[in-house]
């Protein structure tokens, strides 16, 4: 269980030791320092749940420490303690934002109540922040929608593997929702009370990835000014999601393999082995087998990760899900923008279903967001979709078997006019007709340059 961290600041050694010993017996993680400067340095570098600061200290008094803490770490509660209590100093301490003012020596009942109350309050604040983040993530989890047989298989697989502790490898093209699947596995499993920590291996520079995953000790390298917990350590009891696993170097692959085998690691620059209990979920859009053949990915790591595989289909492989996804995103962005829509026009939905979506769900989501922002009518028409989709839609209509020759001609001329930026000569040359004929066509089809 996480121990609450308390920083004790007192210039008298006997007080520091006595208070630390007593707090340690209560199960707190305590550090005692002798002056305000050391305290501020510690507060800057580490996370604390409570600071207990003596009022009278030679270098910097408790009120000054309190003021500076309020500036640098406004959420950290500070108890001012003193053996020389006066009404003035008590008022001053409370005015400056002290969480409490207690006279030394303390009545055991009083101080234990004060410390427990503040630590509990701090825990609730942290829980609240965590829950808010989780709530946002849960909202995203709802994006995992679909009724196609491909997607139903994925959802069934998620339900099957979630209660187990097995390592899962999620494969799928970019934008298919691999992180959503990882989050769903975590949320439906026994580790849901603990965090899911994601590490986008491809997004973190190679030189930083090792430190980011395993953490580092103070002084491990230039710039390591304080101890830093890595993603693996942060995920203890929870789930570690290694996204874009195919992008990591062979050196990091070795470190990762050792960790997966032993479930134990050392921070960069550290000697102490740290044991963690985590579930690993990895994801990739790369063809790992081809990478193994080329010597770019370790086979042993592949087998360690590939215990259970979930293949997420691309959006074009589950076109029947596009309408439901589009409606879902329309509702989502309507809510966030405060606009009201009846839905998509028939033609718009056809464009969405026919498009190949190389960027998958992420691209669909972005396109719907674009349409919602741009649209000034209650129905989403093709004109509100991103230009790229509209252009392709026009081209697609040219090849539709049910269009008349005249319609195909009309669409084609309009597309070329747009792509040539309404330059008549260039358009006529492109179409292989003379300018007079082009003018006649523009007149016939009533094209207007916007």
């Amino acid at each position, binding site marked *: 269980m996480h121990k609450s961290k308390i920083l004790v600041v007192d210039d*008298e050694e*006997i*007080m520091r*030791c*006595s*208070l630390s*010993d*007593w707090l*340690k*017996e*209560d*199960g707190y993680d305590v550090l005692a320092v002798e002056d305000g400067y050391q305290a501020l340095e510690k507060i800057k570098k580490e996370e604390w749940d409570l600071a207990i600061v003596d009022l009278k200290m030679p270098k910097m008094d408790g009120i000054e420490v309190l003021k500076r803490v309020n500036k640098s770490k406004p959420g950290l509660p500070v108890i001012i303690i003193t053996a020389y209590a006066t009404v003035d100093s008590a008022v001053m301490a409370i005015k400056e934002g002290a969480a409490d003012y207690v006279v*030394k*020596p*303390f*009545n*055991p*009942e009083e*101080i*234990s109540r004060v410390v427990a109350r503040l630590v509990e309050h701090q825990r609730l604040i942290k829980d609240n922040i965590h829950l808010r983040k989780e709530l946002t993530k849960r909202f995203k989890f709802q994006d995992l929608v679909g009724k196609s047989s491909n997607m139903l298989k994925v959802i069934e697989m998620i339900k099957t593997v979630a209660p187990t502790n097995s390592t899962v490898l999620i494969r799928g093209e970019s934008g298919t929702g691999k992180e959503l699947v990882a989050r769903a596995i975590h949320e439906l499993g026994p580790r849901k009370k603990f965090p899911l920590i994601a590490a986008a291996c491809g997004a973190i520079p190679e030189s930083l990835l090792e430190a980011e995953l395993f953490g580092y000790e103070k002084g491990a390298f230039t710039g390591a000014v304080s101890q830093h917990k890595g993603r693996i350590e942060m995920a203890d009891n929870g789930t570690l999601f290694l996204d874009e696993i195919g992008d990591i170097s062979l050196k990091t692959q070795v470190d990762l393999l050792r960790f997966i085998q032993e479930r134990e690691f050392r921070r960069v620059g550290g000697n102490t082995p740290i044991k963690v209990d985590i579930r690993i979920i990895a994801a990739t859009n790369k063809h790992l087998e081809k990478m193994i053949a080329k010597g770019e990915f370790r086979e042993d790591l592949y087998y360690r990760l590939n215990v259970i595989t979930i293949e997420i289909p691309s959006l074009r492989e589950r076109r029947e899900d596009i309408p439901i996804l589009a409606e879902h995103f329309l509702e989502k962005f309507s809510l966030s923008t405060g606009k009201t829509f009846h839905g998509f026009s028939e033609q718009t939905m056809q464009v969405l279903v026919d498009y190949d979506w190389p960027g998958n769900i992420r691209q669909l989501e972005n396109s719907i967001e674009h349409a919602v922002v741009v649209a000034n009518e209650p129905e989403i028409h093709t004109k509100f979709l991103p230009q790229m989709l509209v252009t392709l839609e026009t081209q697609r209509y040219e090849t539709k078997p049910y269009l008349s020759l005249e319609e195909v001609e009309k669409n084609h001329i309009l597309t070329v006019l747009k792509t040539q930026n309404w330059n008549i000569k260039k358009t006529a040359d492109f179409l292989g007709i003379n300018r007079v004929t082009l003018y006649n066509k523009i007149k016939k089809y009533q094209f207007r340059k916007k």
Partner: protein
Amino acid sequence: MKYIYLKTIGLVKPTILENLVKSLDMLFPFQSKLIVDEENPLFAFEPKRDQYYAKKMIEKLAGELPLDCEKLVGITDVDLCTPVLTFVYGEAQLSGNVAVVSLNRLRQEFYYLPHNDALLVERLLKECIHELGHCYGLFHCNNSKCVMCFSNSIISIDNKKKNFCVGCKEFVDKTIRKENYA
């Protein structure tokens, strides 16, 4: 063979200690032995507070540990305090060998109530077990009935049982096994 030593610090009524030894023998896998030292612990006296520093007693006892000592608990009748607390019922070295417990505030007379030896022994036993628990590395327990629950009043001492809860017992047994039979 190792023993849990109980050492008096100043005058303490012998019958109380005899009962204590018997009860501790049943709880820990070590026999208890009594050492009587009736010298007044003036070295730990703090005149400004008219009390005795628990830590100073612990430091002195730690320097006089018998060779066959598993843990040592000092028993005193004087009122104990620490630099930061107005009083303590006892104090221990966390994961160490020595603890000290005071009878002073465990007596009914301290609260202007009639003398009760049986109750005094029971309270003393609870505090000794509590401090020994700290010596075996235990923190305070959230279970209000567990002997390791933090007591800041005589009522809270009377409310808790003279045993470890399941979790604390398991921890102590494991520590004893590790320290003695590993």
